[in-house]
């Protein structure tokens, strides 16, 4: 949103206000929605972690009896589904929410109510999926749910797959709504003077990720719809008896699935690209190259999906072509790593927790990337696929990569969100304990894989040579668990008792550090005019010049007070004549309606729709129509 708003002469409806918990339920403020996302995502991180610890407990010794095979299959399915869809993606979205509008100098996202809707749909979808544990059993066919193991003849002892199919479709709506929102926001709500090439890298990666989400999720949705129709309405999409190809599912899933892994990694890469310059006191090395390599990855992500299917027998030509495209995508990825090293080279590194996690990202992601190159060659992949080698690879990139990047973001932006610093000592304990535990858990899995241990087996006999490394991995997993406890303790105590942070505790370079911590609901007193990349750094350190004939620095927030907290809470939006969108309950109602409509399919497979689906549809229509016709008092 652009310049200072004005009040219209016509009467406005009174501002809607809600108190207490309702102010959270009906909020449309991106910062609050971001906090909701973050807290929920961290909760599900613990849930997924618990599932992992149960898996590792069962595998600690050969012939383990902690859980039986069916429960084991549910556990690893839910571990992955939870981590990917209920934790890592929403955590990235929490940062899109909190940070992107601040970084581009906006007051909120383009569609605040759609934003709220996205969160509630996520929460309800997550609850729907996890309720499967209570209603007969969780999904048990892996997070990738290959047909035709997921078809009724082979999977109808419980309704787990039905919960999976419906839950993921609901979650898909949330992801897509969010992606639409951030795309329009980044394209259309940038402060004056902020061209694309002046955007912070985190915003850049959010843009690319949003494009990937918009185009990848429909493909998954179609796959899920086809599976749902097979299970609910007797269609034949994956029914070999009718002449169908179960491999169609693999294609649809991985056409989604590969862009999905870039959806998972790019935001974390964006965080690292913002953290490294701040903590090195110099700009990102090769900014255009890093930005464009992200875009390149976004395009190339669509051309590699078959590398998940090298053992499916598609033939030498398909294998060869996709091997080459997969190797090619390693190039822009590697370029980023070198540019990051170039960023810290020659800097004065402020060795604080965010930087540790960003450096850890580079170190661990490099390993994951290298094992990825090893997977890119089909003959080598024929030895590695479906073994623990792939488990090692995926965890090095998703944990050592994404999660480390997200933790860097948490430690980096926690002061901005809460106004307090996370404790540095506990932060480093968290980092080292996690790094030791993580490597203890997943490094041996490379060996286990090449020693022939398959994935997704609930037990193994002794004498295979797998005993020692499985035990080591389990010990490592519990070490990770301990480090998470340290983090949770740190977060909970710092929110209340942490050292107070000013607006700019890290000597930041981008716009979010210009406003108080926590920010007022209107973000900026006056929308800044942006003169260059890293506008805040330009203002604070004009002597660094940053070349390109920059003009004499103009105060970027005309008339704004000194950087720091307001003594007595500062002016409100009304004081400043700024219109902010009112909270609204329609997104919540519409989200509830959507979830009920899908959940209702579990009670009675339509037609006719069950009572729950009917209620859900009515709720949805009420929510949507209310939303459309709601008097808008903001912007």
């Amino acid at each position: 949103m652009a310049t200072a708003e004005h009040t219209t002469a016509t009467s406005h409806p009174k501002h809607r206000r809600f108190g207490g918990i309702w102010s959270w339920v009906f909020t449309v403020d991106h910062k609050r929605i971001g906090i909701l996302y973050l807290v929920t995502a961290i909760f599900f991180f613990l849930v997924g972690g618990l599932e992992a610890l149960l898996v590792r407990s069962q595998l600690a010794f050969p012939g383990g009896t902690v859980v039986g095979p069916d429960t084991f299959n549910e556990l690893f399915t839910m571990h992955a589904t939870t981590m990917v869809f209920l934790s890592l993606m929403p955590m990235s979205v929490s940062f899109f929410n909190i940070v992107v509008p601040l970084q581009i100098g906006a007051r909120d996202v383009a569609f605040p109510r759609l934003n709220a809707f996205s969160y509630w749909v996520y929460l309800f979808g997550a609850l729907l999926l996890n309720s499967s544990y209570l209603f007969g059993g969780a999904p048990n066919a892996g997070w990738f749910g290959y047909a035709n193991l997921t078809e009724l003849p082979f999977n109808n002892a419980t309704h787990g797959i039905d919960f999976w199919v419906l839950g993921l479709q609901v979650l898909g709506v949330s992801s897509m709504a969010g992606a639409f929102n951030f795309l329009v926001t980044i394209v259309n709500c940038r402060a004056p003077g902020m061209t694309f090439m002046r955007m912070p890298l985190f915003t850049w990666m959010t843009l690319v990720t949003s494009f990937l989400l918009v185009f990848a999720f429909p493909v998954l949705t179609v796959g899920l719809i086809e599976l749902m129709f097979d299970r609910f309405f007797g269609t034949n999409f994956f029914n070999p008896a009718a002449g169908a190809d179960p491999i169609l599912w693999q294609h649809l899933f991985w056409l989604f699935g590969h862009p999905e892994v870039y959806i998972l990694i790019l935001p974390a890469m964006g965080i690292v690209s913002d953290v490294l310059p701040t903590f090195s006191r110099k700009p990102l090395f090769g900014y255009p190259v890093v930005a464009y390599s992200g875009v390149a990855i976004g395009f190339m992500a669509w051309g590699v999906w078959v590398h998940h299917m090298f053992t499916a027998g598609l033939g030498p030509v398909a294998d060869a072509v996709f091997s080459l495209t997969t190797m090619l995508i390693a190039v822009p990825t590697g370029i980023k790593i070198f540019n990051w090293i170039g960023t810290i080279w020659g800097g004065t590194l402020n060795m604080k927790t965010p930087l540790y996690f960003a450096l850890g990202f580079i170190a661990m992601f490099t390993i994951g990337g290298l094992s990825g190159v090893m997977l890119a060659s089909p003959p080598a992949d024929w030895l590695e696929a479906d073994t623990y080698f792939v488990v090692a690879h995926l965890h090095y990139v998703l944990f050592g990569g994404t999660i480390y990047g997200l933790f860097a973001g948490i430690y980096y932006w926690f002061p901005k969100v809460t106004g307090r610093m996370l404790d540095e000592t506990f932060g480093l304990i968290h980092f080292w304990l996690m790094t030791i535990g993580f490597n203890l858990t997943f490094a041996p899995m490379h060996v286990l894989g090449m020693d022939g241990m398959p994935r997704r087996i609930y037990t193994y006999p002794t004498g295979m040579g797998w005993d020692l490394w499985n035990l080591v991995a389990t010990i490592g997993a519990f070490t990770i668990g301990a480090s998470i406890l340290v983090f949770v303790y740190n977060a909970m105590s710092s929110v209340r008792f942490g050292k107070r942070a000013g607006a700019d505790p890290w000597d930041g370079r981008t716009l979010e550090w210009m406003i108080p911590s926590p920010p007022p609901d209107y973000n900026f007193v006056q929308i800044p005019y942006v003169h260059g990349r890293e506008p805040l750094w330009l203002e604070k350190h004009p002597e660094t010049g940053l070349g390109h004939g920059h003009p004499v620095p103009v105060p970027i927030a005309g008339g704004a007070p000194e950087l720091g907290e307001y003594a007595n809470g500062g002016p409100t939006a009304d004081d400043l004549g700024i219109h902010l969108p009112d909270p609204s309950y329609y997104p919540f109602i519409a989200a509830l309606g959507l979830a009920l409509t899908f959940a209702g399919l579990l009670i009675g497979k339509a037609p006719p729709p069950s009572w729950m689906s009917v209620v859900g549809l009515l709720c949805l229509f009420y929510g949507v129509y209310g939303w459309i016709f709601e008097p808008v008092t903001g912007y």
Partner: protein
Amino acid sequence: MGFRIRPPKGLAFLLLIIAVLVLFLTGCASNDPQNALTPVGPVGQMEAGLFTTIFWIAVVVFIIVEALLLYTVFRFRRRPGNDGMPAQTHGNTALELTWTIIPVLILVGIAVPTLTTIASASNIPTGPNALKVGVVGHQWWWEFDYPSQGVVTADELHLPVGTKVALTIQSADVIHSFWVPKLGGKMQAIPNQVNQMWLQADEIGTFDGQCYQLCGTSHANMRFKVIVQSQADFDKWMADQKTVPAKPTAAEIAKGYQVFTTGPCVGCHTIEGTDAKAKIGPNLTHFGSRTTIAGAIMENNPQNLAKWLEDPPAVKPGSLMPNYHLTKDQVTALVAYLESLK
């Protein structure tokens, strides 16, 4: 607060990582039954060879990148003497080109042997000297057919040493994946699809395999054995497999024959020479000659067989062969009969 790592400690850190690496490497190529890096046939050898090449290239890149990272952190960390405003370098085009071109060249170096190996591995031998084997994955056991000889068996694949084997891989129910790590790469068994691969075993011995694609409750229990024999031994085995067992006369064995042929067994199993011709479960014609049972999860001996017959799902969770609540006598008789089928 915060840690300060002085250079000597950092070096020790790096050395520790390398020591761990070396420890791993000893575990990598070993004599473990399903180790993929010590294959005994040409297909496995070219695949493992390619893996090893790429692995060492990756190790070199790893050492360079991680060392560079660690060095950079130690050298440029903030400390008295390195506290000021650093030069605000934007980038360097020459460097960008260098670290784009060098990875591309490395990848080309990996791509070329990749393509040639794909070609070799896809070159399925035809012709009379290649042994044709049909592999069919079932929940949770492996069917092995020798179409040219008209032999059907389960969970135990016999191969003559030094002979090219052309395999077709299919599935009767869901997707499985067939792999004998000592012989060559894996291939999925997909319903409605016939996948092809070739293998060759150059050493006599017994090699382990199992299913590598999640296929349900007992995915972990879907193993098999590959027994590589001299041509003479293989021919003898094949001849034995082709013989039809005679109707038994010895007391206990005949009793078992009775139990089998009048019981539910005939609904799922085939034994040549009887009226049992069903193809739902494994072919049991020469059951007694096999070294393992129940998806190669147990050694084939009377005690294990009795345990299986008493309660299959207890041995193999989810087993499609239910518990028929056989009496002890029935079990003993069946064991005698089945073990007699050599």
